[in-house]
């Protein structure tokens, strides 16, 4: 089994290296990563592509044993998590909805997120970019509703660069940190994307 060492690399480098290594031939791969976002992102990336991932703590990081077949690629839309609503993705790029007074826009965004709890169909995942990440951080009134959505199987992914920009990386209250690589993949493989 081929081994790649991604320790010490910042996201999205480990995901890109993993993708490249898997594309080059192997149906199995061993990836060494740092704990935290790199470990989570590489694991998620592989699982989303239909691979099995076994994680084990190693010296100075984690070992991810990735096995399976690239032929299963594309099963993303059929896996249990995505089947929530046929891989419908919500892209939220602002903490307010629409153009106009900030106060009204914020109210509308909050209302929209709470209303999702009452709609029969829910997105498979919600991607938060730019000031949209603030909706998932400590103190935001939307956290309560987002936690309920997460409990129902909606995957919540917040842009790490954006959290860092707003100095809110440690204050993410719900969902997971993600990178642009993963964001782009989710957008390009979604059956539909709704941008707010």
């Amino acid at each position, binding site marked *: 089994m081929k081994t790649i060492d991604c320790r010490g690399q910042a996201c999205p480098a480990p995901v890109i290296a993993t993708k490249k290594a898997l594309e080059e031939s192997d149906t199995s791969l061993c990836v060494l990563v740092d704990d935290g976002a790199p470990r989570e992102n590489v694991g998620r990336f592989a699982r989303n592509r239909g691979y099995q991932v076994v994680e084990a703590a190693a010296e100075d990081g984690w070992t991810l044993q990735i096995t399976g077949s690239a032929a299963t690629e594309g099963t993303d839309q059929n896996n249990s998590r995505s089947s929530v609503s046929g891989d419908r993705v919500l892209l939220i790029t602002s903490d307010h909805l629409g153009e106009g007074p900030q106060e009204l826009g914020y*109210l509308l965004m*909050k*209302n929209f997120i*709470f209303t999702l709890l*009452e709609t029969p169909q829910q997105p498979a995942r919600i991607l938060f970019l730019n000031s949209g990440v603030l909706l998932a951080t400590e103190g935001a*009134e939307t956290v309560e509703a987002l*936690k309920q959505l997460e*409990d*129902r199987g909606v995957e919540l992914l917040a842009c790490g660069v954006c959290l860092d920009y707003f100095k809110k990386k440690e204050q993410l209250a719900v969902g997971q940190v993600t990178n642009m690589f993963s964001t782009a993949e989710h957008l390009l493989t979604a059956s539909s994307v709704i941008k707010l």
Partner: protein
Amino acid sequence: MGQQVVSEGQYLAVFNSTHRVLKAEGLLKNSGLPIMLIPAPRAVQADCGLAIRFDEDHLNVIIALLTEQNLLPAFLCQFTNNTYVTIREYQHENH
């Protein structure tokens, strides 16, 4: 399924004016009251569809503040036994 947006026993002050509900929200929050402005549930019909949610503990102080500032809602209801029961309607202009 997770819990509901409105829990058993909680109250909703339902407004029909966006400006009015925003003013009321600001007033109550500035007074340190734990309230949340939410979309009015489907079962509760409201023109602008906004409601302020709060616990019973704060009912009296909230109604007193809203009365004092002339910001009473269109009506007040309580979520009990999985139903929204209207407690009181307020007759005034500009809900």
